[in-house]
């Protein structure tokens, strides 16, 4: 037990207790905060935080409820993109909600809005091409007018 230096067996027990505490509390917190749910596509996971109830309730009655979950519109389709966006948003949402440092009413950030706009076009490719125009100019915004397809407000 060279690494424990002068502390000997008592030190080993102390180490066990502290590290065990950290692991145990960490594991419990992960379970209590429903950490595993964020690895799924289940929209109810996004509503773990009560501030999302309005959006979740809205989605339940919106036109896309049977064809798109939260991830389908708010994260890119490819594996790397999806988990990058999930990870980034996951961290910042947790941070904001824990500290309370965010403005209300909640408005989507530009980068996330861009992700959502691209997702419209992934499914509605032909329609979007017609509206965006063949001239290659700046694409129109889908959700400015079609604001309630995912969740009103």
């Amino acid at each position, binding site marked *: 037990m*060279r*690494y*424990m*230096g*002068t*502390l000997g067996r008592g*030190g080993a027990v*102390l*180490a066990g207790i*502290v*590290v065990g*505490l*950290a692991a145990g*509390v*960490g594991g*419990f*917190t992960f379970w*209590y*905060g429903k950490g595993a749910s964020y690895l799924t596509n289940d929209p109810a996971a996004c509503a773990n*935080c*009560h*501030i999302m*109830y309005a959006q979740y309730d809205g989605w339940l009655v919106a036109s896309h409820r049977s064809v798109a979950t939260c991830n389908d519109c708010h994260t890119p389709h490819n594996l790397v993109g999806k988990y990058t966006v999930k990870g980034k948003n996951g961290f910042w949402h947790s941070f904001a*909600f*824990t500290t309370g440092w965010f403005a*209300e*009413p909640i*408005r989507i950030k530009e980068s996330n809005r861009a992700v959502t706009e691209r997702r419209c076009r992934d499914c509605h490719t032909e329609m979007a091409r017609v509206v965006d125009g063949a001239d290659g100019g700046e694409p129109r915004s889908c959700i400015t007018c079609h*604001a309630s397809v995912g969740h009103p*407000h």
Partner: protein
Amino acid sequence: MTDGSQRSGTKWFLGGVAVAGVVAAGVLALLVNIFERKQEARTTFVRVTEVTDTTQNPAVWGANFPFQYDLYLRTTDQVRTRFGGSEALPRTPTDADPRSIVAQSKLEEDPRLKRMWAGYAFSRDFREERGHAYMLDDQTFTERQQVAQPGTCLNCHASMYAVYNALGDGDLTVGFERINQMPYAEAREHASQAIACIDCHDPETMRLRITRPAFMEGMRAYKAAQGVADYDVNTMATRQEMRAFVCGQCHVEYYFRGAEKRLVYPWANGLRAEDIYAYYRASGFSDWTHAETGAPVLKAQHPEFEMWNQGVHARAGVACADCHMPYLRVGAQKISDHHVRSPLLNINNACQTCHPVAEDELRARAERIQENTFALRNQAMDALMDLIGDLAAARGRGTSDADLAAAMEMQRRAQFYIDFVEAENSTGFHAPQEAARVLGQALDFARQGQIAVRDARYRPIVPARGETDRR
């Protein structure tokens, strides 16, 4: 193994334990935070005390609903907006009037109002509006009380539900009639405070309900004209409609009918200015005779409910409470913000739920509408002053009543239409196009009246009333 490496090993080990300890503490803090958030997600209402149909004191209701009560108390706040809000000007209290703060006198802001109301109590004292908390005091101490007023006035300026029930031995309408027939000073003894929870909420279920007989009767007459017989607002209105109707109990045009001074909302023909004007014409009612012109004229009072009904927000199903008592998030609860005030002081919650536009832009839009309305109102007011001047001069020359009949009718119309918008507290915002329409017509009536003064044979043109609105 040497001593040195043993000690450095110890340091590393202790460092590792320290880090693990910090991590454990941090994770525990996070755990506690998550627990708190989950608790917030529970909507809790604790029935601390019983609230009954006679519990007038809002503080008792507030024991069960502290958030709403705290917000309700804030209607004492006095913050101006450009054309409205609530305000505080200092004054020296007197024996007759102990108020140390009052709102700005509108008569001082615009002396044309005095001339418009010459011969009527409103020409003595008329002030900017203030928060609900001041409703009873402002009515009790206004100089308009120097003219004898009936107890009817209390219907909208105090918490009256329990009073009506008590005076009527359980019959709301009988109590209402009794108060109406008392002189104000006597009726005032029965009132003790401004509007309270009981005036809008059922004490058992907290659901919204109508407590003012005048609104029930007015609504019944209005619905009858629309083809809906025996309309009972408390059983037939939807919840969203109620979120406007409870405000409509008081924010309306009204008059006192007959010797019994019954409070009546003149809606049997409809809610537009011309519908109400036609109602008064048919019943032969006038508020007073103009001191300068001798014309029998009408006063319009705060027709917010009628005006809102003509606008696009009403059309879209947006009720008074949606903008003036928008939902507020407290923890995970969604409660109505009971600090009733100008939405311009709360653009975030009042407007941005539906209009995801920057606050500055929303404010600019609202003020633009109000500026336009105000400009038109000034134009119409000038035209009215010209007409009153012409009529007064004609009187001075001894022109007969018959020759001035058409001109006086035009004064009566112009004055009522201007007042309809002037007394309405949104400066056009509730229904911008309707406000402009009414003021435009008022302008025309005033100018036509001037023609009629100069030419006794001139027949003024008044647009046909058309069908009543279908809402």
